[in-house]
């Protein structure tokens, strides 16, 4: 599926793998027992648990099994948490010497690289601003020159007039975001990332544009904000 970023895909595949295993165990077991232990009249086996109206039946348990299926899922969950840690750390890396370093000096470039897990690291990052309001996005390149960051508008056949943010491949950006009125959230679809924009507070979002980034992709609003929420769109262009 083309819209998955490598980091997402890595996690997705791993989770699907475990889901299939857990699902296979559960559904296989269900399937088996649904057929193996059926009875037309309920009398296949004698009343081992002494079921009788008004009598609490005999306990039906097995300590070892119950401990087993407490411990094993717990271990799986610890493993999945551990597996998710590195991507989490990368996507919320600190702006002060995290995986994207510090803000770029004049003339410095990010030169970001993506490792085999889809995790991107950079030498430094550029700061831009995104403002959300009802019902359009506002991109501000601040002091970056045109080759690094450019804004404009475009008329799209389906969305009408949308703002366009044009960023350079291989560069990493930190978007400082705020809202003018209610909550919104820009979803950079092909970056697989979003963060709420709130009125009266600032949030940040990393936009690492890798060399393999799709050239044109959509930014949709992903936090309900009223009437025109559905068409509050923007376009992200990744240029060379």
């Amino acid at each position: 599926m083309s819209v998955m970023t490598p980091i997402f895909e890595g996690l997705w595949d791993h989770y699907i793998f475990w889901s299939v295993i857990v699902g296979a165990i559960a559904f296989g077991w269900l399937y088996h027992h649904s057929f193996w232990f059926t009875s037309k009249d309920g009398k296949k086996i004698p009343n081992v648990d002494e079921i009788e109206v008004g009598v609490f039946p005999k306990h039906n348990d097995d300590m070892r099994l119950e401990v087993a299926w407490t411990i094993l899922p717990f271990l799986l969950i610890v493993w999945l948490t551990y597996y998710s840690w590195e991507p989490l750390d990368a996507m919320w890396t600190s702006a002060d010497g995290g995986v994207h370093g510090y803000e770029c000096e004049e003339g410095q470039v990010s030169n970001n690289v993506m490792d085999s897990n889809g995790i991107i690291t950079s030498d430094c990052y550029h700061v831009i601003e995104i403002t959300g309001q009802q019902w359009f996005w506002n991109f501000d390149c601040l002091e970056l020159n045109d080759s690094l960051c450019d804004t404009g508008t475009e008329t799209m056949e389906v969305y009408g007039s949308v703002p366009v943010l044009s960023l350079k491949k291989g560069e990493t950006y930190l978007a400082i975001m705020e809202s003018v009125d209610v909550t919104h959230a820009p979803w950079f679809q092909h970056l697989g990332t979003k963060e709420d924009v709130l009125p009266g507070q600032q949030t940040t979002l990393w936009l690492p544009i890798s060399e393999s980034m799709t050239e044109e992709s959509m930014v949709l609003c992903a936090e309900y904000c009223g009437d025109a929420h559905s068409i509050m769109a923007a376009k992200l262009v990744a240029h060379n």
Partner: protein
Amino acid sequence: MVGKRSKGAIVALVVIAAMLALPSAQSLPVGISGVQESGCNCHGAVPSDSVVASIDGLPESYNYSEAYELTVSFQGGPSQEGNVNQGGFHLWASEGALSVNDATSQLYNQNEVGHTDAGNDQLSWTVTWTAPATDKNVDFVLHVNSVNGNADGAGGGTSGDMWSKVTISLGGPIEVLEAADPFVVLGVLIIVSASLLAITLAYVFYRKDPDAFDWDHFAPWLADWMTSTDHKKIGTLYFVAGLFFLGVGGIMAMIIRIQLSVPGNDFLTQEQYNQFFTLHGTTMIFLAAMPMINGFANWMIPLQLGAADLALPRINAMSFWLQPFAALLIFTGVFSGHGADTGWTGYAPYVVSEGAHYGTTMWAAGQIMLVASSTLTGINFLTTMAVMRAPGMGWMQMPLFSWSILVANVMLFLSIPAFGVGLIQVYLDRVVGTAFYDIAAGGDPLLWSHLFWYFGHPEVYVVVVPSFGIISEVIATSSRRSIFGYRSMVYAMAGIGIVAFIVYGHHMFTSGMSPTLRFVTMLTTMLVAVPTGIKVFNWLMTMHGGSLVYRTHTLWALGFLVTFTLGGISGMFFPSIAMDTHLHESYFVVAHFHYVLVGGTVFGFFAGIYYWWPKATGKMLSEKLGVLHFLTAFVSYNALFWPMHRLGVWGMTRRHHTYFVTTEEALGSLPMEAAGWNMFITVSAFLFFFSNFILVFNMIVSSIRGEDAPDDPWGGWSFEWMTSSPPPAHTLYKLNDGSWGLPTLKDANEHIANEPGWLSSWFQRLLVTDEDTEEESH
């Protein structure tokens, strides 16, 4: 005497319902008084045909937020070149914003412009109109006045002048239907359903005693239902109300799916769609799922405990009656097109903004009443289970359905007050102008998020845990075995109940959370899978070594195991935050929660209905119809919700009234296949909706000519099977010696009745009993 009183009450009720259903006057655009309605009749009593007004520069359909230069002008009439005054105009636009370009026009407000003194000697004027940002039907009304200039200055000499008007309408890129349309549809469907319900009630009454079908008999019967404090009657009321609103919520879902069946659809406008998904969510959770749980709980908890009723019967009735009145409030404004449009989560500050429709205030008010109702319910059930268990029934001898209701109610009444406080804050902000969520004054939108989700997350467990209880009962009884791992089932439910309160942050991963908190919430959210997994494995193990008898309730329980497990697995993707950033607010979320809510909760309800219907009504449901219901519903349900996972990953966003696919010509936000899948989902939705009418039909047929049910048709052990089907009017049980009374539980295990466990002993030492305390201190 009594009949009159009941009549009066019913009339009052209808009047109030009518008052509430009337559109609220201030919300309809009545337009601007004066020129727009009455015309330029200062200049002449009636418009004149010889004056022709026109507006140039308007497009066929506007583009969002685009500015257009409009030229308003007229021809004809007495005005002549060279006169001091030639004419004037007044332009009104129902939407968008007008602005003036020069001193010959003036702006009264953003909907109205007119000429100035300096501009009253022209035949045409230019103004700017900025189109709205959303889809609307825009009406322009232009009044022009052609004066003969027979007096100096402005204001004098209006004789001989002529005026005229022209009206133009246009729409935006997506053509908009008149505001009321889908609401007319919804309203008609609700009225039809309510009428069917009323007819059914009348018919049920008729069947009770065909010879006594008159008002003098009907009024007391109706009054008895309206005033009853009996847990069985209240349970039935809850159940019928819940089922009714399940249908209403389903109708809303159908309308939503029609809108989403093709990209760029215009069946619903954005504003209408926003109201529909808000009300769909609120209706399904608060007016359908919670009442149905209360229906089962009211019926079965006293029966399972071996009690005569709940601890506080009148409070129980109060809990119920708060609900229909709350529903009236919640739906207020819907029929005039101004229902709440905030999403069921009602995020601030949109929820306290003037942009959110007027119905939002009533939506908050209705939910405040529901909070009161749920709090009273929680108190009632917790007290009942703590104090009214039959002799021999310690805490660890309660049936698992009772345990599930206990855990659910404890979670509910501890979490819902936070929601209630939040709602009161919203209500007060919108009504008396407090500043809880006023950003300019320092208000914080995240405060609402915390209050809401502190309630919201336990709430979704409140809604699913009773289904766990039902499934435990059904699988154990169907397998003819005791539930596997009773104690770990109890601990697992209690564990879910506790952990529920500390994971609510996972709804706020993208709201600017600190990385440390994100990690902690990730871990705790994933840990919830452990007790839930224990329960699933215990259910599977219960069948082991059993004699599984297939009835419809068995099928639904097994179906539940499939769909709830799938829903739980899909839920595991979200705590991995690097996936959550993509999946949050997408259709993957919609798929997940519908799998656990419908595939979990509702399928549990279906299992419970087939399981307990004979006990409650004394009639058996048809197994054939039941199997047919299961097959059609289960298949269409999966066809309906499974593809949504994929749509979510592709990038389809929630709460968007429409979506656009990428074609050869244009870039959209989804791949082309998404359109076909959406249509497939819509068709499946209709199949699922109609398949559930098989159940309704089954219920009706069973009531009319179902075979009589024995006391214990399925071979269960708990106390509800120890009374007649249906139980007597005053709940009592058939004891071993043939008499009727309150039972004592026997135990097939070695267990000493009434000896408290270590926790209970410790707790008891803290209390002072009432027995021998007269004047002593307490």
